[in-house]
């Protein structure tokens, strides 16, 4: 009797034997993975799908992860593979991933960055509260409500270029705040 190919039917199931510690690692790194994937394929409507695929593979590959080693590096390399596979399926070119040397250097850089560490999201939330009302409103409009720079420039009567610089500075401000906050906590 023919049996159905499980993956074809979408019936793949995570291994039931995943350890709670490993699952915790996967959970803790969700926002880091999302930020990493978003940096590689910004504006792609499938970012959530790629993250989902990454999670499924991470769950299936627990045995390949050496306890105590760098989980972030392990997870990022799987996410990178998933991004590549997604681009191949969609027959899309991506300049950043096509240049393998540059891609390696950027991956290394992102893995070293404090902003890619798992606790950074908590610190980001605290840092957002330190912004002025106007700065926070701008962030909300752009990142929650999806306003484009062009729309924001009309609302705020500023040029797009000046808003670009403002967001650049705000992200740097948040990066500094996150790093400081993380350093304070660890000391």
């Amino acid at each position, binding site marked *: 009797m023919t049996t159905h190919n499980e993956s074809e*039917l979408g019936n793949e199931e995570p291994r039931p034997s995943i350890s709670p510690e490993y699952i915790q690692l996967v959970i803790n790194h969700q926002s880091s993975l999302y930020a990493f994937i978003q940096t590689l394929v910004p504006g792609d409507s499938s970012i959530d799908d790629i993250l989902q695929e990454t999670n499924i593979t991470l769950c299936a590959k627990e045995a390949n992860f050496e306890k105590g080693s760098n989980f972030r590096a392990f997870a990022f390399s799987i996410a990178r593979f998933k991004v590549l596979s997604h681009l191949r399926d969609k027959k899309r070119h991506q300049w950043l991933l096509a240049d393998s040397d540059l891609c390696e250097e950027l991956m290394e850089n992102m893995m070293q960055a404090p902003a890619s560490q798992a606790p950074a999201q908590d610190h980001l939330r605290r840092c957002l509260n330190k912004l002025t009302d106007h700065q926070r409103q701008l962030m909300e409009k752009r*990142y929650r409500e999806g306003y484009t720079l062009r729309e924001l420039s009309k609302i705020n009567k500023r040029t797009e270029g000046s808003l670009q610089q403002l967001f650049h500075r705000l992200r740097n401000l948040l990066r500094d705040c996150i790093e400081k906050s993380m350093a304070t906590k660890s000391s």
Partner: protein
Amino acid sequence: MNTRLHHLIEQHLTGKLTPSGEKELQKLLSESSENRDIFCTQGLIDGRLRWEMKNSLSGLPTVEMHQRQPAIKKWMAVAALLILVLIAGSIIRTQFGTSEPQAGNKTAHSIPANLPVRTVARLTSEKEANWLFGGSQQTLSSGFWFKPGEWRITHGAATITLDSGAKITAVAPACVELINSNHARLIDGTVSVDVPEPAIGFTLDTPAGRIVDLSTRFGVSVEKDQHEEVHVLEGEVIVHYGDDHQQSQLIGDKSSIQLNTSGSSSKLSPAPFRPESYPREIEFAPTAQSAGQDFGFVHWSFDAVDETNSFAAQGTLKGADSCLAQVVTPQENQSRNTTKGAFGDALHLNGDGTWLKTNFPGIAGAKARTIAFWVRIPPSARNSQAYSIIGWGYSDPHHSPQKWEIGWNTARFPVRGTGVKGAVRTDFGSGHTIGSTDLRDGRWHHVVSVFTGGEHADAATHIRHYVDGRFEGVSAYRQQAIDTETDTEKSIPAVIGKYLHPGDQLFKTFHGSIDELYVFDTALTPSQILRLKQTNTPPAQEELLPTPET
């Protein structure tokens, strides 16, 4: 300050980098580690901001909530991960729903346990058919919704129509396993299969092989002695066979083959063509039970506007003819509201405050319904102009809405990234089902929203969409039991082109053209939907199937 680098990074982060910009940014990043630092910082913080805003809006558990739990138990951890996957993924289902919420689906990231099972097919006609359930013989009336699983017919004959539109006609004795909306398995017996163009790719597995349809009609028999035959009555199919079905052969029009199982493999050889051995589709004959049910429709063709600035309605539902759709226009806007449509003229709304009111109360409760229309949405349509094509029901800003509403998905609600932007979206209260085709391309599309109805009906499982006659994949769904309130003081009769929520500031009015809008008080079949698209002809009263409880 490297303004140019900042500009290019900004373009990259919004997905708007041009090919020449890509080259320039690539060069800047390759030549300086400082530039790479800037790029990575900006990218990571940008991504974290998106994640934060996306999840803090949802009200659902976030990563950090789980992190705070000191001793997370295994099952809780799994649940937490799955919740995360649900938040992140909005669950994209493939076109024919291979990971749909269906019986036996083991997909861990699929559905809450209490979600009703989604049906995949419908009994569209039968002739003295008996079915075997739990050891006893039962009859099923036409219109019955099939869940995934094995269905054994023990007497008579029946035609089962899958949601994709593929029809399987089985003559007793036969056993068919319904796998999903475009995939079945013949366990034993004889069937014929009719596959319309929108369901091309329909797959029928047999013990010895797999038949993939290329828009055709074919017959298959599986005998208990492991002998199988495939007869192509019209068109072509591909038969996969051998070890793990790795071999395949195209079988042409009016030809046939036999498959014989040999161990774990199968062999293919010629067979005499015997088309007469396969049944034709059973014609639907109303039963006493179904004949007693009165179904109908209301239809706005938008072909002519009268002196009161109203569009006429017609149809077979009681009072349909009096359901005029009257144009409501702000004083400052007196622009023309008609345009050339898919059939005759169409309604055109430019999102500037113009909409149509009717006195059609809508379909109430959890009664099945089908809403069909042509729509043309310009690529420039804004999120605030997404609602609605049609809506009705109870909508009080201070209470949970009990309204039925169809528009296009802005991918903002309940969280950013929900479903495919621009796809058809049917909402009920806080529940919804969202399609997968972006309609905002300035072309006419035939769109149908079918609600299968019933006592345990849910917005997540009982709504299907068809776009241009094709069964639409689901890009996101959300649970909500359905009970449309059309008879309260605050219930609003059907409105066309306006968000139903009174006083809402978020949505304005619909921007686009609408033509041949039908509302039926039952669920149409895929072939009726296809015919409506092709000829603008609604099914006759006696062709409308009842929708018995599943």
